[in-house]
């Protein structure tokens, strides 16, 4: 049962948005696309910051927008995180947090305390925004959006304005949100690694149109999408830590259809993890390969073959039980190996990225 039904049609000079989406009422939905794809505009339409002439938006059976119905932004039960934290410079951190909380009818103080704890900003409360680092500012911006006890959290590229170091500082907090928040989150991003880490559901936009929408793993494994991801083509697997090899400092994670070895981390067996495997790190062999430096070699079946950005390359999707991996091959090697759908192969995975 979809909880958010959104239909918007908007025409600006040089840009148009035409979407009709049903989004799940829980988990993190990523709106993904290159700049100019309309992902931020779509988010602003949901927030009521843009008012498209033709639109319909129903959230949890309540109509926010329809012909003749318009709920202004300040009456929508949303939390919104802007790309730049956009804190009020004339208020302290606490003043910023209190601003929204005081205006949220029937909101307990709990939301604010929880938000402060979740984002780890209690030591900053008395400071002024201009004395904070970029990362701290964005954490306050997220806490401020949560302090109004929103029924849905909208985030517009909260990491895009930050450098890599600040990003690494905030990502753990976002993952904590993902785990602990029981409201739906719509997360706009153009960064595949953020999407792979945070999203449960993926909507891919291009030129104001929805190209595909669906659960993350399933959508990432599609190789027929006309979106350019370059080096970031790859899949995400939901896996479980099942064995730690102390001697070699390696860890085995199991997913439906196989298991992979990766560097040991400080994680207990049984822990759910997310594993990202990039297409460029996957190669295929017909016969069982002999001795190799590659530790992860798994039997699989070719599922589909599709074109890649470069005419000399192909994307090959293989099935391991119910899981899918995508490999990037040259057209020549695919020809020489006789790669066609249904062919049994051995998958060699050179490296995997673990996301807790």
């Amino acid at each position, binding site marked *: 049962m979809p909880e958010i039904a959104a239909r918007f049609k908007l025409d600006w000079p040089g840009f148009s948005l035409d979407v009709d989406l049903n989004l799940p009422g829980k988990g993190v939905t990523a709106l993904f696309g290159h700049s100019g794809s309309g992902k931020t505009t779509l988010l602003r339409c949901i927030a009521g*910051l843009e008012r498209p002439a033709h639109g319909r938006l129903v959230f949890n059976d309540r109509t926010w927008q329809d012909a003749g119905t318009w709920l202004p*932004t*300040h009456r929508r039960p*949303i939390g919104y995180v*802007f790309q730049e934290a956009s804190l009020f410079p004339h208020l302290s951190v606490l003043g910023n947090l209190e*601003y929204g909380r005081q*205006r949220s009818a029937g909101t307990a103080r709990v939301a604010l305390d929880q938000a402060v704890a979740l984002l780890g900003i209690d030591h900053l409360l008395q400071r002024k925004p201009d004395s904070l680092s970029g990362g701290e500012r964005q954490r306050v911006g997220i806490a401020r959006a949560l302090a109004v006890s929103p029924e849905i959290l909208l985030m517009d590229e909260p990491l895009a304005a930050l450098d890599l170091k600040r990003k690494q500082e905030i990502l753990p907090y976002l993952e904590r949100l993902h785990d602990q928040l029981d409201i739906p989150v719509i997360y706009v991003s153009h960064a595949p690694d953020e999407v792979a880490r945070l999203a449960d559901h993926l909507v891919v936009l291009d030129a104001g149109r929805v190209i595909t929408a669906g659960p993350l793993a399933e959508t990432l494994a599609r190789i027929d999408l006309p979106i350019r991801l370059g080096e970031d083509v790859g899949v995400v697997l939901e896996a479980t830590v099942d064995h730690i090899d102390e001697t070699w400092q390696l860890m085995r994670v199991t997913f439906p259809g196989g298991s992979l070895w990766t560097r040991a981390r400080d994680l207990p067996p049984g822990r759910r993890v997310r594993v990202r495997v990039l297409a460029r790190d996957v190669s295929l062999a017909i016969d069982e390969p002999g001795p190799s430096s590659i530790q992860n070699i798994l039997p699989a079946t070719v599922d589909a073959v599709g074109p890649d950005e470069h005419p000399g390359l192909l994307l090959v999707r293989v099935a391991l039980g119910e899981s899918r991996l995508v490999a990037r091959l040259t057209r020549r090697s695919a020809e020489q190996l006789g790669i066609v759908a249904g062919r049994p192969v051995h998958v060699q995975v050179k490296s995997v990225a673990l996301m807790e």
Partner: protein
Amino acid sequence: MYLTDTDLQAIWLTLRLAGITTLILLLIGTPIAWGLARCRAWWKGPLGAVVALPLVLPPSVLGFSLLLAMGPNGPVGQFTESLGIGTLPFTFWGLVVASVFYSLPFMVQPLQGAFEAIGERPLEVAATLRASPLDTFFTVAVPLALPGFITAGILTFAHTVGEFGVVLMIGGNIPGVTRVASVQIYDHVEAMEYMDAHRLAGVMLAFSFLVLLAMYVWRPGARKGG
């Protein structure tokens, strides 16, 4: 005493006129400036031009128009007479009305600039934090535009203190009622009381310089970068 009693009377009248004019213009000019800064309607251009007219119009033209409008045959004059308060020319309140028109751009333009400098974002943020547009105006726009309010207030006050032509057209030269400092100086000069003229002119010069100095030295907006 350095200044004569009539000089002091003229200075007091000037300060009262400038103070009341500034207060009235804060109330009138703020919504006009907000409208000019926020709206994209067709009337934005014409309204902006009308507000700026006193900057280029000779004070005598403005004074003459107001004199006709507020006189017994003018629309404003007939309205004020129907209210039973007589006509406004050659009264203190006539001067206030004239000063409000004359100093309007000095209030509206700095405020408009300050409101425009805030940008769209803080207002959008306030909306996502449940603040209604009116609430947003008072709790976000006004505090962020505070340096603009201070500049506009000082400029309006100082400009009203310095007006002469309009006063002469509307107010004439009635001691204690419409004889402000600038007219008093004119009187001293006409009567060849050059020493008196010097003293009062010196006071005006010192006042104007100090006001402008205060404005240029103390700039609260300067350190707020991000």
